[in-house]
């Protein structure tokens, strides 16, 4: 499913642009709805092209997200004058602008709107994972079993994809459409190298996400580059370190068994 996440993060673009054209602003409800709608359209189209259209599955993903992204880019260029959105924002977001943005004033402290929005999203995602743990768990690992005990695999699939689209669009303004994929995939993949248990995996990937963000921020300041890209690079470094460590460890234990 990793690549479906990637596809969604690209193909929500037309939804966002259309929402902008209808008068939405970064972070407004219009955008969320537009993105969620296009996220679900993407999932549906991939499914449809593959099942009904008989297209090879990996090709389907590629065809669907590139078409929708192309549509989004065309809309951005055509309506660039009327819309407060540009191509750079699509690519790497404006995490560095969060600090100078306006927000809620709270006893002398300004909490930027972006921080508030993302916190709300975080709470929603946590709530979804806690409340829907059983459904998500079963449909992820054993769809056939889930179906026999009466859990709707299809609805959980769409709920998960809607959550992915929403997270994507909310992170969109901060990190951009492509880098969000690094945030979606890399920490879980690193965690997955270390454990087989879902709960541990979730915990570890959160840990990697937090440490990666902190290190990435200081890294970016040190070398004067984009913060979001630096964080994603650090997440990638974490993966490489764990991966190499695992491979070396495996080699080592194999040699030991041979020696015994």
């Amino acid at each position, binding site marked *: 499913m990793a*690549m479906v996440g990637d596809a969604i993060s690209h193909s929500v673009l037309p939804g966002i642009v259309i929402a902008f054209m209808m008068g939405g602003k970064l972070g407004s409800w219009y955008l969320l709805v537009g993105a969620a709608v296009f996220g679900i359209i993407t999932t549906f189209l991939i499914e449809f092209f593959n099942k009904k259209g008989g297209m090879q599955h990996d090709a389907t993903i590629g065809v669907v997200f*590139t078409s929708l*992204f192309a549509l989004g880019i065309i809309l951005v260029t055509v309506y660039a004058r009327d819309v407060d959105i540009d191509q750079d924002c699509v690519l790497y977001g404006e995490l560095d602008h969060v600090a100078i943005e306006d927000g809620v004033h709270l006893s002398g402290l300004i909490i930027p709107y972006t921080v508030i929005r993302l916190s709300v999203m975080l709470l929603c995602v946590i709530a979804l994972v806690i409340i829907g743990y059983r459904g998500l768990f079963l449909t992820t690992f054993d769809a056939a079993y889930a179906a026999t005990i009466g859990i709707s695999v299809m609805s959980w699939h769409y709920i998960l994809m809607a959550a992915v689209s929403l997270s994507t669009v909310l992170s969109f303004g901060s990190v951009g459409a*492509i880098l969000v994929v690094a945030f*979606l995939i890399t920490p879980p*993949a690193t965690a997955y190298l270390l454990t087989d248990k879902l709960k541990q995996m979730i915990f570890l990937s959160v840990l990697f996400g937090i440490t990666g963000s902190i290190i990435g921020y200081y890294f970016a300041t040190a070398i004067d580059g984009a913060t979001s*890209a630096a*964080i994603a690079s650090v997440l990638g470094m974490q993966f490489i370190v764990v*991966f190499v460590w695992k491979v070396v460890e495996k080699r080592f234990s194999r040699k030991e068994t041979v020696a015994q």
Partner: protein
Amino acid sequence: MVDIQNIIDFLSLKEANVRYVVLGTILLSVASSVIGCFALLRKRALIVDSISHSVLPGVCIGFMISGTKDPLFLLGGAMLTGWLSIYFIDIITRYSKIKADTAIGLNLSVFFAVGILLLTIIQNSGNPNQSGLSDFLFGKAATMVESDMLTFGGMALLVISGVALFYKQFVLISFDMNFAKTIGLNIKFYEFVLSILTVMAVAIGIQTVGVVLMAAMLITPAATARYWTDNLRMMLLIAAVIGAFSGIAGAFISYTYDNMPTGPWIVIVFSLIAIASMIFAPRKGIVAKWFRQKQNSYKIMEDNILKAFYHLGEKEGDFYKKRTVEDLMNLRKFERGRLLNGLKWLSAENTIVHINDTYVLSKRGKAAGERIVRIHRLWELYLKKYLRVADDHVHDDAETIEHIITPELELQLEKLLDYPEEDQHNKKIPYSK
């Protein structure tokens, strides 16, 4: 706005600028469409996406080393990191439990992040040459000049001739790895050549459509061509034609309208052709498939009705008795509406005759019903005798196969079972004599 003069101006390629853009775009589109066919057939469509995102850090490194936008440095860097991403995906999937799609997503986003990081560092460094470097992100086909055309067009030609030269070897490693191994083909080497050509096509194509849309340049024409043919040569040709056509269309749209980007329009044209093919292609299209399904369900309905007539006739010893709709419904659970339709079609074919409210089998109808019953019983016997399927399990299978078996298979079945008189339920197997 579009008018005839505009189209003529465009097609006559009078302006040197238009000439370069059009020629360059066609060459790039054709090269990536052709190489994309192999990526698709080897189930590596998404690796292309990873390559195209991964060339970005290479472009930046090339720029940082040379300090200029010398295409050779940029392309060299692009090809290096593009190829590295294929290598990493291979390593990750081979040495860990991480699956290919996760490895691809991880690679493309992290490589891209490094690329963006380098790009922002370059932007903040204030090097005056850097302007236009970010064009690699979205492509800028419309600004292609003569020297670009020569470099990129030349490399596109190199990719195309590479495919022509190694066509046979590429076919082997795409379709029949085992055979390629048996005849001692140097698989590693040819896989390497193919991956280099793919990376090359991506690296030069980025100029036209940019990082994100590059995947479409390789995947979509190939996936579209797949609807029209099963023959690889034809597939390459069709993909190349689609590539060339969309290249021209994209260039034309951005020439005609102000501010219209070429790359995204090429991709949109690709996708429209793909969707049209998916719906209307003969044999593999949705319409053709739907039509075939309809025909099959007609045939099954007709077969079942004739069989019901035959069973009734067998029971009462009179095959040519008049039957009412209720008679048939009592024998088999037909849906009334569909049964009436089926009876109408059969009457039109003269396999049954409609008299007032009753229906009678014609000679041809009786023979047809007999044949279906014969196949059904022969098949049951065959399953029991040769595959040792239990008695109560053979019926459902025979119920399906009776509509499919050809006269040749029927004859073989009869010979194999040596023209048995009765099936295992002691029902007579009818032969036409």
